[in-house]
């Protein structure tokens, strides 16, 4: 087998197009993926009109001065603002397609906010206007989502501030203290101090004093109020965020999307390189008429199949490892797990190599084998990536079974486990081992008609 491996490597070395493809492919793919996952998505261009006077941008809340422009800064993290001076100018930019949408802050926005918070003026809340260009529904949806999400963040921050202020007022009511409203300062005795005063007064009364009973009722009420207001912080907190989210992940550890994308990219590259190489190199033995000469005692048919599987797996694993090394320049990958990368890519390579030799033996010719490999690989990858819930339960069962008989899914699981510590490496390797045996057996059977 060693001599055949050397021979195949010599042939590969003398096929410059194939060699360039094997080296350039992982470099290009890893660079593209690296750039894609390491850069934040492109920000949509949105016209921004702030009609609030600069002098009028602040407002008081609970004695704290807040600047409305700080909320705009948060929004600008998600969009690329195109500042304009008027609503008409913003509408024109949206119409012309120069921007995907426009956000208009009316002149009375801070005043209305100030009035609402001070409880002194109109209770009407400020309304921001958003204008979309629906010419491109996908982009419009993206802009709308970004703006809504950022406005929700801003509302949440304001709500938190209001909660804090309200809790502060309730604390003063409970403990006593001073506060300012409409420019005037007030001293408040507080419920606890009031209760103490009332208890002192009651204690000073004689036992048969007719005022003692009503005074005791007031003291009891004060005690109840103190006890219940002690829970006010939690209650206000619940109003500010009535629904909390606790995330529980089932079926394996959670992998961030960018890291999972790396596992998918590596697996797809591994699949194409290995399947095409194994199928092509086996079919080449027939095209070169060497198959008959080899298997008449020089090499066993099984030995020949295994040699092609090993050759393709080693080459493809090298390509995959090159890709991972390239990707680690863009995304922080745990280099200490590199030995597991080797294990996973080699195991995946063996799985795809076994599938490749089966296709090569069935197709018999290099071109047919390459075409068959390509046509089969794409749907296999697609099937393995169909998420549960995307199709009906029955169809998903079919998809799972179909994915299980091809090496893509277990290889993806193995690479994800090796690169991202997603767990399940042992199961994936066992699955791949079973597939290698099955596909080598199929290839061996198909070779019966190979020499003809």
């Amino acid at each position, binding site marked *: 087998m060693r*001599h*055949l491996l050397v*021979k195949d490597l010599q042939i590969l070395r003398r096929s410059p197009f194939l060699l360039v493809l094997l080296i350039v492919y992982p470099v290009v793919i890893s660079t593209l993926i690296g750039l894609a996952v390491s850069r934040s998505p492109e920000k949509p261009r949105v016209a921004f009109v702030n009609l609030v006077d600069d002098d009028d941008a602040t407002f008081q809340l609970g004695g704290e001065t807040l600047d409305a422009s700080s909320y705009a800064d948060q929004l600008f993290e998600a969009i690329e603002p195109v500042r304009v001076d008027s609503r008409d100018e913003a509408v024109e930019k949206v119409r012309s397609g120069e921007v995907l949408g426009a956000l208009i802050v009316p002149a009375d926005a801070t005043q209305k906010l100030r009035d609402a918070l001070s409880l002194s003026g109109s209770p009407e809340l400020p309304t921001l206007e958003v204008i979309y260009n629906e010419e491109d529904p996908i982009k419009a949806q993206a802009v709308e989502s970004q703006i809504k999400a950022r406005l929700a963040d801003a509302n949440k921050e304001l709500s938190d501030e209001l909660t804090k202020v309200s809790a502060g007022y309730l604390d003063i009511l409970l403990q006593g203290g001073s506060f300012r409203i409409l420019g005037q300062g007030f001293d408040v005795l507080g419920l606890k101090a009031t209760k103490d005063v009332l208890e002192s007064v009651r204690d000073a009364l004689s036992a048969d004093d007719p005022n003692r009973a009503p005074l005791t009722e007031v003291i009891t009420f004060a005690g109840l109020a103190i006890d219940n207001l002690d829970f006010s912080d939690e209650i206000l907190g619940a109003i500010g965020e009535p629904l909390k989210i606790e995330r529980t992940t089932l079926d394996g550890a959670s992998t961030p999307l960018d890291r999972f994308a790396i596992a998918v990219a590596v697996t797809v590259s591994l699949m194409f390189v290995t399947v095409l190489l194994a199928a092509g190199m086996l079919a080449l033995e027939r095209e070169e*008429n*060497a198959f*008959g*000469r080899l298997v008449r*005692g*020089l090499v066993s048919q099984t030995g020949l199949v295994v040699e092609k599987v090993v050759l393709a797996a080693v080459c493809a694993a090298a390509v995959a490892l090159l890709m991972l090394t390239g990707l680690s320049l863009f995304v922080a990958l745990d280099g200490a797990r590199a030995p597991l990368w080797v294990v996973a890519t080699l195991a995946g390579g063996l799985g795809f190599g076994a599938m490749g030799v089966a296709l090569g033996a069935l197709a018999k010719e290099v071109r047919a084998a390459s075409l068959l490999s390509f046509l089969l690989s794409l749907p296999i990858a697609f099937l393995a990536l169909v998420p549960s819930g995307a199709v009906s339960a029955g169809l998903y069962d079919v998809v799972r079974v179909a994915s299980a008989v091809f090496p893509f899914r277990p290889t993806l699981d193995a690479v994800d486990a090796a690169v991202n510590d997603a767990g399940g490496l042992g199961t994936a390797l066992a699955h791949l081992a079973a597939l290698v045996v099955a596909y080598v057996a199929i290839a061996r059977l198909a070779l019966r008609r190979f020499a003809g």
Partner: protein
Amino acid sequence: MSAVPRDDPAATTAIAAHGVTKRYPGRLALRDVSFSARPGEVVAVIGPNGAGKTTLLSILGGLQPATEGTVSRAPSEVGWVPQQPAVYRKLSVRENLRLFARLEKVDDPDAAVARMLDQTGLADRAGEELGRLSGGNQQRVNIAIGLLGAPPVLLLDEPSSSLDPRQRERLWTFITALARHPTHPTAVVFSTHNVQEAERFADTVLVLADGELLFTGSPAELEQAVEGEGPRGEGVPDHDFEAAFVAFLRERGH
């Protein structure tokens, strides 16, 4: 050419087939074929298309088993040269020879390669990729690979079918030199459609038709067999081996 005396008791048998039969589903490809060849003997297997020539050679070479019958030599003792060059076009002449020498587990692969380069006359082109050589030179390497293990028998399946006349002539010079080697004569069994080639270079011809061995003997004996059966028919000249061969087949219903 000088024929090897077929009745020489001193000559040992290089290869023999006994009662070889090959059945495919629904078809009988070979029926009870027996023959033998001595060292240095050149045997041509001739017959019309579908006669079973390639099937016979592939059974002798161990590429497929016979349904019935036996072959005296194991496949590893027989040099096999397929019709199309079974070589790697991306490898050089030397790399091809060295690869197969190693796979054949030849004692001294480098010496065997040097010997074959010398015999084929390709020593000066040993480093060239095989795909860049002419068809004739590729066929020489193809034959040289079959000879790497110094087998006592060499099987060639239509060795000259893709060659021009000049290349054919050089090829046959090479093959007959192998067969007539003074110290290491090789029995050569080849199939061909070219009956003139069989007449010129073979000591013995085997005539196959529909899987049946109709004749075993020298080309001259085949002509005599036809003459002995009466007039050849109109338009068939004397001493025309091809005409005699066609008449032989026609007289036997083929």
